[in-house]
């Protein structure tokens, strides 16, 4: 029936795993079709039976921008590094919402697809991975609106905009890492479903989205503040698009990248450890 298959492709070995390998890339490659289709399904289903459809990917950050501009910008007069507040907050909100959506969707991906987990085999990591990828697609849909606002306010990017892919990668890596922890924990403890919104909210206030990070002047506090990988990401993203580039101290950049990496690796490891019992306890 499957003449084109190699024998290696067809041989399956089943035994208790002792598991020290973090990710089985070879196997993941074999399931790339599934990663693609799960991402595509997430995107396809997300805006089904909505009137505005994919426009929601743009409306959400813009609405939040309006709310922030009214309350933080106009009423509270939060300093925004000399940039018009709407533009300032939108440039922070876009990478932030990429992070937030990736984290939120990844965290619930396992429990939401429990019927698949209890009935079929596939590398479980496909689920959080494809929800992160779907969030990236949403981000790309929303990105042009920032360009529109930049044109309107007459701002142009500087040479550091070349670093944007790096910032986005760091965002996705951090969100995926935390998402791995939360999704696996969520299988065992549904408490996680209640914790995630708070974590996201607190994390947002700990990142320079509604305010400029210049507000934190105490050097010790500032050092701790900079350990949050999203601080570097949002500052870097915003300042490379809107005028003068405010680089982070190199030390903080290295630290926050290391922290993201640590979150990712520990997340992969924990996920791998728990994976084998997902079907039994979900």
């Amino acid at each position, binding site marked *: *029936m*499957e003449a084109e298959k190699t*024998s290696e492709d*067809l*041989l*399956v*070995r*089943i*035994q*208790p*795993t002792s598991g020290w390998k973090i990710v089985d890339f070879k196997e993941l490659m*074999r*399931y790339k*079709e*599934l990663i*693609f*289709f*799960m991402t595509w*399904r997430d995107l*396809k*289903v997300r805006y*089904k*039976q909505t009137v505005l459809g994919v426009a929601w990917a743009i409306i959400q950050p813009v609405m939040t921008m309006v709310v922030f501009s009214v309350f933080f910008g106009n009423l509270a007069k939060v300093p925004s590094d000399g940039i018009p507040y709407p533009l300032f907050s939108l440039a922070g909100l876009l990478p932030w919402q990429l992070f937030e959506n990736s984290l939120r969707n990844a965290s619930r991906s396992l429990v939401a697809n429990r*019927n*698949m*987990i*209890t*009935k*079929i*085999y*596939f590398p479980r990591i496909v689920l959080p991975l494809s929800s992160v990828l779907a969030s990236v697609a949403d981000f790309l849909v929303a990105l042009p609106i920032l360009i529109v606002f930049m044109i309107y306010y007459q701002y142009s990017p500087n040479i550091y905009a070349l670093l944007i892919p790096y910032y986005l990668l760091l965002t996705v890596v951090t969100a995926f890492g935390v998402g791995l922890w939360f999704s696996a924990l969520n299988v*065992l*403890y*549904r*408490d996680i479903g209640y914790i995630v919104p708070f974590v996201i909210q607190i994390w947002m206030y700990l990142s320079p989205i509604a305010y400029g990070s210049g507000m934190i002047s105490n050097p010790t506090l500032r050092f701790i503040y900079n350990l949050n990988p999203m601080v570097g990401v949002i500052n870097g993203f915003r300042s490379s698009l809107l005028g003068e580039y405010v680089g982070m101290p190199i030390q903080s950049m290295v630290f926050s990248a290391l922290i993201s990496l640590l979150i990712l690796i520990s997340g992969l490891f924990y996920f791998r450890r728990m994976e*084998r*019992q997902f*079907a*039994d*306890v*979900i």
Partner: protein
Amino acid sequence: MTDYAVEVQNIGKRYRIGAAPANYRTFRETLNDTFTNPKSRLHGRMTDRNTFWALKDVSFNVKQGQALGIIGRNGAGKSTLLKILSRVTEPTEGSAQIRGRIGSLLEVGTGFHPELTGRENIYLNGAILGMKHGEIDKKLDEIIAFSEVEDFVDTPVKCWWSMRYWLSGTLNFSANVLGK
């Protein structure tokens, strides 16, 4: 090389029973336990008292082209065995080797999403079964014709939900090894 399609050696599966299965414990209890009794791991030690063996020492071979029926009462372990062979859950001990693609009817309609059309669901389920995009393309017409739902194949499945089992059953015929 043997021509066995399925080789099962001394497979055993131990489940936890009785009080405090992992998902009924709170996070706090577990945190406490982790510190006061570090050996107990996330959800307590497995002892003879709180566990039972759903399967123990199961061994058999199935040749290519051979059909094997497994009969047993409720709770005999038929589904557990099928779950292990389809890799949904891991055996506690023992090992097995399978040549061919595993398709289990446990999974009927699993990946179906009510908002997607029949055609979209075929692709999604094909991917879940491990089929390649091209492979599904080749078999698409065959699958649609065989399932006799040509008329609604481009309508969201939620509108003809009760028929989805039929369609996914058809899909499974492209799998080599069938269960249940």
